[in-house]
């Protein structure tokens, strides 16, 4: 009798469990569907012939790749923008890794007067949001005659406290013994940094690199200010040129936006998990 009741209860709870699972699926797929709409519109509009643009339809009556071809063949500037963005992001990432890892090494593995003060200052600089400084920074860049140059975009945001903080946390946990035995073997400080600490920190370094690369690639406000020559533009700033040229040509504009989004979509597809974990790492910095 009681076992019959038990199994009835079990069946009931099983049903509730199933219902619950269905609910989760509906919410998750429904939300993903909503999230996909903007991208779906970007790609379909970019292939919609101009005579079908006036009304609204989810799926155009006919599609064409004409506008993609136009963007790829008719806009040499886009290749220039890709190149500029690639160079800037690569150099920024490299420099960030160098200056952040050396100072993090000095802060964790070496003992010298003033290191606590410096670490305190770096932590405090977390509070200074990069964009409140743009006016004095701009006067500095103009004084140096760097307008429209790569360095104007690269150097101002090279000293990122975020990277130092992440690396300090990681370096601190590397056991002393490795370093001590290396010193016994006559390793110089630089060799300890380059051949022991860095290789052991590869996971955190690649995550930081990936995050900085995407961040630098997507910078908008600062390049908008220091670049005023379309040959020097990065992709995010170049998008404004596409917008002003194709303001009334939704299909061409969407094709252009899709094309200039492609490089990072590829990076994302290749490194999806790594990129996500690079974001997750930051929560540890509080």
């Amino acid at each position: 009798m009681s076992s019959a009741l038990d199994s009835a209860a079990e069946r009931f709870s099983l049903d509730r469990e199933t219902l619950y699972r269905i609910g989760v699926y509906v919410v998750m797929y429904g939300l993903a569907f909503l999230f996909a709409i903007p991208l779906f519109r970007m790609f379909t509009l970019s292939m919609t012939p101009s005579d079908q643009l006036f009304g609204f339809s989810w799926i155009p009556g006919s599609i064409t790749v004409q506008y993609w071809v136009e963007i790829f063949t008719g806009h040499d500037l886009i290749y220039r923008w890709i190149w500029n963005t690639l160079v800037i992001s690569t150099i920024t990432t490299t420099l960030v890794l160098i200056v952040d890892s050396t100072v993090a090494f000095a802060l964790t593995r070496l003992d010298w007067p003033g290191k606590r003060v410096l670490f305190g200052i770096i932590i405090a600089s977390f509070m200074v949001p990069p964009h409140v400084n743009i006016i004095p920074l701009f006067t500095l860049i103009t004084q140096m005659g760097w307008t429209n140059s790569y360095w104007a975009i690269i150097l101002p945001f090279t000293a990122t406290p975020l990277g130092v903080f992440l690396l300090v946390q990681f370096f601190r946990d590397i056991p002393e013994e490795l370093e001590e035995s290396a010193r016994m073997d006559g390793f110089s400080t630089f060799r300890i940094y380059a051949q022991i600490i860095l290789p052991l920190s590869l996971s955190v370094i690649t995550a930081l690199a990936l995050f900085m690369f995407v961040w630098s690639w997507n910078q908008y406000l600062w390049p908008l200010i220091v670049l005023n020559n379309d040959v020097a533009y990065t992709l995010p700033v170049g998008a404004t040129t596409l917008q002003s040229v194709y303001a009334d040509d939704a299909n061409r504009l969407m094709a252009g936006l899709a094309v200039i989004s492609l490089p990072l979509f590829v990076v994302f597809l290749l490194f999806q998990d790594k990129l996500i974990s690079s974001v997750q790492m930051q929560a540890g910095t509080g």
Partner: protein
Amino acid sequence: MDVKSTTGDASGVTDWVDRETLHGYLFALPYVAVFSVFLLYPLLKGLYMSFFEWDLLQPAQSEFVGIENYVTLLSDPLFWKALKNTAWFVVLTVPSLLIVSMIIALGINRGIKGKKVLQFFYFVPYVMTVSIVGFLWLQLYASNGVFTVYLGRFVGGILTNQAFALPALSLLTVWWQAGFYFAVLLASRQNVPERLYEAAQLDGAGPWRQFWDITLPQMKNAIIFVLIAGTVFQFQVFGQVETMTSGGPNEATITLVYYLYQLGFKTFDLGYGAAVGYVILLILIGVSVLNYAIVGQGVDE
């Protein structure tokens, strides 16, 4: 110590200590140099500039005006409007981001089928540049855009409506940024020990109880991170405004950083702009301190 320093061995030690100090400075130097020139110096110069009516072309000709820029700011209706809009934007955006990314994180954590594909669609907007996002959503909000087609009869032209323009920017910001916060929350959820849930199930706690009694308290640090980082980041909203509304209609979407940008690079009011920049900095520091104070209390409990 004294004994050691007299022995021959110890001179090697002191020599080493000096060398370690030297190496410490050398390794810290690149960061300190870049930090001083591009962060510290502009920070101080901004303070200096804010006491002048700054002349862009001939800085030496700038006129010292004392605290006049700060006085002007107090009675500048655009500044207050921008502050109000920014605060409203943060209030609209940050809680929505938290809720949406929390739903996504908890859903993904259930190990449903097609997890990878779902994760792709949730995260991919985050790798897009704000200008591309802005121009894309400008199309969605246009008269033949998907938004207007379905919701136009209720809200009309959403970006030309003073009441709806800012919430419209907030909506796309949630779409654009949710991936970041979802990733953070997912990691945190995965760190919650499963045995807590097993124990709760034995006690007969339903999903809702488990969420309130286990999931939320256990994910507290990540939630706090989302709130603080989200507030500081969304407070600096700029690209959406610049690409989509230029602060309009009728200054309904002008935000602090956008106002700062206009002062510095459209009207070239550099001294006043520097003052506005400083006030934004102070507000943000205030917000952070307040956040930490509140959070600190929460952690003590």
